[in-house]
Structures are given as structure tokens and as C-alpha cells.
């Protein structure tokens, strides 16, 4: 039977044969769970009892929950601190690294290595750095030059930036490489023309380099924003004794979801939070693309 098919028909048969398992996979492991998460968000369910339909109750409860608003704010603080800081630092490094030829590969390796580490392992390393004297490296260093201790993870003000620091640190290498690729893609002739005209290197940076890097900047902003909005590994591991503490000052949305679903087993409420996370990611990405593409 197969023999009688035309070449085009044979291709169709092969294509669907190749796609059969993947279609099943994407259907069962991606699309069905997405729908299911939305469905559960309208139900009340603690895993043991019955699932009852409650309409928008989970969402009303969420928007009336002061902890949610605290967590929502924290999530955006991670984004609003993490994205610009890592963008500026990685650009400065890439800009200068691009102009450096001596041991270029070695320097690039130093900046990229943290990207290859595991977030959990590094969260524990930084957690040790942040401990009070006589344990923590940072406070020991401060003490040795006579500066008073700094309450990195104990203070409600400083715990969040302290947790954010290793996340920024680990992502820098990736952004540096992307920026350098973007810088290399700018045609040399632009710079040569500018040099002939005797333009200062500062003007070249603002008038040529940065405008031409816009696609790279858009990518890095959107990509790193998604990462900071979904921060979890660092927070969870640096505050295991009191997840998201002190006093919820470091708790991001993903940690709230994890606790609601897998400590309190309030599946409907947790599902509603995941839907909110999805919408936040979607809206933030769309706004960023709109603003950065247009301007």
C-alpha cells in the first residue's frame, strides 16, 4: 500500500510518524497541564477531599491577602533591582572586554564560570559568606578592618538584596557573552567613519554603539526579567530555616506557590497564584517588548 503513494503522500506519512510521540508529549505534558492549572484555580481542593467548584473565590482571597501583596512587591523588587543592575554591569564588562586583546579568552572565562555553577550550591556558599562573625566570610573581613558587622540575611531591609546578589552574579557571564556578540556584529565601518570625523569615544558609545545594540538589549532585558520574576532556588536555599524570611521580606511569588501547594496542600489557591504568575510574566514581557522596540 505504501508503495502506491506519491512522493508527497509518503512525506506526509513520514512527517506524522516522526511527530506522533512528540505530539503526544506536548499534549499530555504541556497543554493538558496548562488547562488543568487554570481549571484547578477555580476550585477548592486540599488533595484529600472532593474538588468543589468555587468560581473566582481563590482570586478574591488572593487579592485580599496582605501576604500576597507583600510577595507581589518583593517579586517586582527582584525584577526592578536585578534587571537594571545586571544589565549595566554586564554591558560595562563586555564593552571593555571587547577592547581587550591580551589574554582575552582567559578573562572571558573568569566572567563566564559562575554561569556554569548550580544555583543551589552557590546559594549555600553565599549563605556562608553572609553569616555573622565568627563564621561568615564577609563579616570576618569587615571585622578584620574594624568595620561593625553587617546583618545581611537577618535584616528585613538587606535580606532581599543579599539574596539577589548571587542571582545577579551567576547570570552576568551569560549577559557579557551576549553583549560581546552584539558588539562584534556592529560593522567596523561605522566606527571608522566616526573616527575620520573625529568624534569622541563617548559620543560613539551613545550615538552608534548603544542604538545598534538595541536588539541585544531587548533580548537581555526580557530574558533576565523572566529569570528574576521566577526567582526561587536562591531564596529557598538561603532561608531554609524560615523560607522567605525574615518576616516574608525575601519571599517571591514562586516560593509562595510552593508553600501553598506543597506545605499547605491548598491546590486551588496555589493554582490561582500560578495563573497570576503566568499573567505577570506575559504582561511584563509584552510591555518591555513594546517600549524597547518602539523607542
Amino acid at each position, binding site marked *: 500500500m505504501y508503495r502506491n503513494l506519491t512522493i508527497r503522500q509518503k512525506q506526509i506519512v513520514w512527517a506524522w510518524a*516522526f511527530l506522533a510521540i512528540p505530539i503526544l508529549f*506536548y499534549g499530555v505534558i504541556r497543554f493538558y497541564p*496548562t488547562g488543568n492549572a487554570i481549571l484547578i484555580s477555580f476550585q477548592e481542593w486540599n488533595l484529600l477531599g472532593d474538588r468543589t467548584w468555587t468560581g473566582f473565590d481563590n482570586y478574591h482571597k488572593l487579592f485580599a491577602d496582605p501576604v500576597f501583596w507583600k510577595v507581589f512587591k518583593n517579586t517586582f523588587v527582584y525584577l526592578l533591582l536585578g534587571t537594571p543592575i545586571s544589565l549595566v554591569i554586564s554591558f560595562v564588562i563586555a564593552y*571593555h572586554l571587547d577592547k581587550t*586583546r591580551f589574554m582575552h579568552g582567559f578573562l572571558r572565562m573568569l566572567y563566564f564560570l559562575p554561569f556554569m*555553577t548550580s*544555583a543551589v550550591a552557590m546559594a549555600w556558599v553565599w549563605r556562608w559568606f553572609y553569616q555573622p562573625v565568627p563564621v561568615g566570610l564577609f563579616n570576618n573581613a569587615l571585622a578584620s578592618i574594624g568595620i561593625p558587622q553587617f546583618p545581611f540575611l537577618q535584616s528585613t531591609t538587606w535580606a532581599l538584596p543579599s539574596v539577589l546578589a548571587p542571582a545577579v552574579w551567576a547570570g552576568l557571564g*551569560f549577559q557579557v557573552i551576549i553583549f560581546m556578540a552584539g558588539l562584534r556584529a556592529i560593522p567596523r565601518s561605522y566606527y571608522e567613519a566616526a573616527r575620520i570625523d573625529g568624534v569622541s569615544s563617548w559620543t560613539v558609545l551613545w550615538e552608534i554603539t548603544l542604538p545598534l545594540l538595541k536588539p541585544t538589549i531587548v533580548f537581555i532585558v526580557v530574558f533576565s526579567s523572566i529569570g528574576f520574576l521566577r526567582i526561587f532556588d536562591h531564596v529557598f536555599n538561603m532561608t531554609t530555616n524560615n523560607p522567605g524570611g525574615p518576616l516574608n521580606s525575601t519571599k517571591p511569588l514562586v516560593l509562595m506557590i*510552593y508553600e501553598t501547594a*506543597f506545605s499547605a496542600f491548598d491546590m486551588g489557591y496555589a493554582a490561582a497564584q500560578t495563573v497570576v504568575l503566568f499573567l505577570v510574566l506575559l504582561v511584563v514581557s509584552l510591555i518591555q517588548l513594546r517600549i524597547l522596540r518602539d523607542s
Partner: protein
Amino acid sequence: MSIAEEIRPTTDALLKTDAPKKPTNMGQILRWMLLFLGGVAMVMPIAYMISTSLKWPHEVYNLKLIPDEPHIENYTYVLEDGRFYWWFVNSMIIAVITTVCNVIFDSLVGYTLCKFRFPGRYIIFIAILSTLMIPTEMLVIPWYLMSQQFGWLDTYWGIMFPGLMTAFGTFLMKQFFETVPDDFIEAARIDGLNELQIWWTVAMPLVKPALAALAIFVFLGNWTAFIWPLIVTNSVEMYTLPVGLSSFGDEADVAWELIMTGAAISTIPTLIVFLIFQRYIIQGVVMAGLKG
């Protein structure tokens, strides 16, 4: 122009190491020194982790980077108790199987979407691409319920199943198969190879760099994955390294040099992978970046 062709000059420029030119003027020397100091600061956390894992308890809290009497007792102690050994093996099995699966299926789907003409092609491509928008965290609750229903909790399959194929990998491979000339495939068809053979013996060898980049990313992603393994495992023997390290660190009386040893055990393999495959990894990052 396909992404692969587009980025080739960029990647080559990025990887090209010109004859090392020594900095000539003061400004360049200063720039080099600052970049070097910054780079050293970047690797300090990794250096302190490894250094502390080689220290005796009494010197853990001093600031010296080089231990007075380096030793590997911490490693033998941590591995002796069996847990880290198991976690290492679990992580390795899971990361390797997931990587093999992604390399096969992502490239098969990418190849099919790129080289075959059939009704529904565009819809399937868009459907797969749209899954990139859905955050993992939204899916963990349904995955957990599924695993509970089918008895997948606390099994390798349970840890692995969500990551066996990725839309990112499929998209990456589709872009790379664009660079394979259709003439090669036609010629192979005339030679009487079937479509499966053409994909495996003709097309796949032509996209090896992309396969390597994909393999490294998938491996790294699964080696360091935390939230899903944390949810789906509950017995200590089934933990992966990140989950195990997290529970190990959380035990009240664990000494910091032992935690650093555990952290080193979970970090050193990926650092070694990086040092060996640096070129592919940097190339892979650039591919991923210019895709956006």
C-alpha cells in the same frame, strides 16, 4: 538568511583569539588590570568553596584562600555516608537520559518541521513554540497530580518526564536544519535511503555543533534543576544533588566545610564540562542569544 548563517561570522569573531597583543598605553593597562581584578572577584565564591572543602575545621573561618594543610578528608567523609554518592548517581542518570532524549526528539521534530511539507505543519510549529510562554511553575501542580495518580512520585521517570523534550531545543534545531541543503536530502532519497536514515545519517552529522550546544544546555539545566525534583521526590535515596544538598545544608549540626564539600561535588562536574567544551558552550550561548 537562517540564524545559523547569520551568527557564524559573529561566533567566529567572538572565538577568534588574535595574537596576544600586550597592552601598550597606560589607559589600556589600567583597563586590563580592572578587568582582571573584576574577573578574579567573579570566581572568588567558587575559589572559596573549593578551598574551604579542603580545609580542616579549625581554619574554616579564617580568610586564607590557600589551606595550610589541604586534605580530602571532607570528601571521603561526605561520600562515605553514601548519600552524596547516591545523589550524584541520580543526578547523572537523570541528566544523561534527559539529554539523550532531547537531542533525539528535539532534532527529529525540528528536522520534520523544517524539511517536510505536510498539512498542519505551521500549526504544530506555533503550538510547540507557544509552550515557551508557559512557566514551569504553572505546570508543577498538574504534574504532581499526574505523578500521584500514575505512581510516578519518587521515581526517576517522575523526575525526568517534564523535561524529555523542550520547545527551545526544537526551535534551535529547526533553525540549524535550515542550513542543510535540500539537495543532500534529495540525493539520499535517490540513493534509496528511507526518511529515518536520511535524518540520522545525512542531516544529523551536518548539525553537530548545534547538537553539542543543545546537549550541554540540557545537561546543565537538568543537573542544576531544583524545584521539580524537590516536589516529586520524598525519599532520601531518590534526591538529586541540588535537593540533597539543600536538605543536607538544612540539618542543624552540619559544619560549613562539609556543606562547601557538597556544593563543590555538585559544581565541579559542570566546571570540568565547561573547561573541556568552552568553545561549544560560548557558541551555544550566542546561538541562544541571537535567536531572541
